């Protein structure tokens, strides 16, 4: 049993981390009332920038390169998401359509630049990816140590910490209250002197930063290069985690961990007696089927923020 856990838990954490980051971004954006189908594209942008920066500066920064890469990818994601913010907040575009365009644009730009810079459809493998490590003191704790702190990626724990920070920001600070108010009832928020557009801009840009972070962490832990097939659906899965987690940061984290678990099952299932007889296909589609069931109310109702997807036009009732 302990062996099984020690093989599953690190894998779950490994697969979940990018989803957690990105889903938290989705929570911020949607809580402010801006639907973000573009999470996928934001991850693509993050993965692209993270990999390119890592390839270009591995000599300069050495062992610190992956950390600096994900910070740069965060900034790039934030900047890229401004397009979505401008379209959906200022230009009152249909937010879903704008999100779809973000996805197409990110992949187009990423692969286009890859071809222009590297002369082929995919980059080389990075020299400095994140490596799994055994955390010194903590791994010595009996039982818990080997399960949680041996052969893990530090980024996984960063993701979990960020989830708690996001929860604190959204539920324990004035900023978070305003952000949620803007997503529930923008007119009331406006009457109380909150700048609706500004809050929504901030929220979308935060989602860009977190999406970029998620994409770059995915690229630098799991695949180590960039091509058109680096991010295939992780962004949509994060969006599913947002909804499955009922638009709550910790809920989204839980959902992301669960999806990571489902993904890792299709990889480690051969070692687990109960699961080895289940055809892989069921484990593959499990996250998606469960999300639909969750939405249909079989796993408790999931209600979106009330003003989600509706552009706010001052002076309209």
């Amino acid at each position, binding site marked *: 049993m302990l062996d099984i856990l020690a093989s599953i838990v690190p894998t779950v954490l490994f697969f979940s981390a990018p989803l957690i980051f990105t889903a938290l971004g989705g929570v911020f954006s949607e809580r402010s009332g801006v*639907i973000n*189908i573009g999470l996928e594209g934001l991850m693509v942008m993050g993965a692209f920038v993270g990999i390119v920066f890592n390839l270009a500066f591995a000599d300069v920064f050495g062992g610190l390169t992956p950390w600096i890469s994900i910070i740069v990818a965060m900034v790039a994601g934030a900047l890229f998401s401004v*397009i979505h913010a401008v*379209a959906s907040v*200022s*230009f*009152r*575009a*249909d937010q*879903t*359509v*704008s999100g*779809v*365009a*973000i*996805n*197409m*644009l990110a*992949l*187009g*730009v990423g*692969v*286009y*630049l890859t*071809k*222009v810079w590297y002369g082929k459809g995919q980059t080389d493998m990075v020299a400095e990816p994140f490596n799994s490590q055994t955390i010194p003191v903590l791994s010595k704790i009996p039982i818990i140590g080997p399960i949680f702190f041996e052969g893990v990626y530090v980024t996984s724990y960063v993701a979990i910490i960020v989830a708690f920070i996001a929860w604190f920001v959204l539920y324990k600070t004035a900023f978070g209250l305003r952000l949620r108010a803007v997503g529930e009832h923008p007119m009331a928020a406006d009457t109380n002197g909150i700048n609706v557009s500004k809050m929504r801009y901030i929220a979308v840009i935060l989602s860009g930063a977190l999406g970029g972070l998620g994409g770059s962490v995915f690229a630098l832990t799991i695949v180590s290069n960039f091509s*058109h*097939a680096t991010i*295939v*659906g992780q962004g*949509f899965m994060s*969006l*599913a985690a947002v*909804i499955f987690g009922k638009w709550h940061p910790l809920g989204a984290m839980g959902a992301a961990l669960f999806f990571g678990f489902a993904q890792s099952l299709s990889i480690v299932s051969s070692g687990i007696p109960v699961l080895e007889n289940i*055809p892989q*296909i069921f484990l*593959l*589609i499990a996250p*998606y*089927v469960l*999300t*639909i069931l969750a*939405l*249909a*109310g079989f796993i408790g109702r999931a209600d*979106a923020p009330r003003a989600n997807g509706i552009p706010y036009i001052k002076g309209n009732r």
Partner: protein
Amino acid sequence: MRQVIQVKSNNRLFGILVPIISVLLGLIVGAIIMLISGHNPIEGYIALWNGAFYDEFTIGETIRRITPLILTGLAIAFAFRSGLFNIGAEGQVIIGWLAAVWVGLIVDAPMIIHLPLAVLAGALAGGLWGFVPGLLKAKLGVHEVIVTIMMNYIALYVSNEIVRSVLTDHDTSTEKIAATASLGSEWLQALTFYSRMHYGILIALFAALIMWFIIDRTTIGYELKAVGFNRHASKYAGMNVSKNIILSMVISGAFAGLAGVMEGLGTYGNVSVISGFTNLGFDGIAVALLGANNPLGVVLAAILFGVLKEGAGEMPSAGVPTELVDIIIAIIIFFVASSYIIRWALTRFKKEGK
């Protein structure tokens, strides 16, 4: 009254101007990107033109490319008309493709039965894939966007699994369908230097006609539009809103399923394990949006995007990566979606002109 008429004609003018301006802006941005990345935009666009219209063969291939885009565009436009956003066209394409090829493989019948049966199977499978989100939307109020996204992934994995374990013995693609189920046409192929052009284009154009007929000439279409405009008013007027939502998603799914049929019975003649989406469904969103959800507009927009996508294949000869076209299409979508700002700029411009 005169004012009303003026506003109306203004709206119609904007309705035509917005897409045209968006396309031009998209092409200009594309040219700027080519310039910045050190390519010659004129050479790039000439290569694009040649890629789509160089000779009979490329024209045939361009028409083949346009065919499924018309259908996915119709699918999304149809759902839009009743206020639904069918992002699931992608999954419906995959399932329609699979079902049509499946029937094409296992049924043994003369062409007059086999071909319609296979086409119908694809449309029905797509319709079924649209039925689930429609039902959930109508009965439980679940947002169709998320359900259809999830259905896309389920379609992708299920189709791959069926190809691998049911239709073949752990192979990556099935055998070719029976000739009695093929949309291929020797006549069209001979006409176009053996391109992969097939009879599907007739089905696609006919589907556009059907959509126009349903939406503009039948009670069903009237109700679907009414539900799209105002769900509550339609309910008050005695329409069955749930039924209309489900029906709209099923018809939309059937159109998308037909797009899959075009690929399965026309272009490829088989179905393969795919690592990612076909993108036909997502491109359909762009087509519907640019075509203003109107059947004729959809056909025209599909022609434009089909030409761009097919022409892109030739762009590397000018040193430009094919992805430039994806960027251009994304930018066109942004501008059409943000038509509010284009309208604003146009009215502003007009006022200053006076």
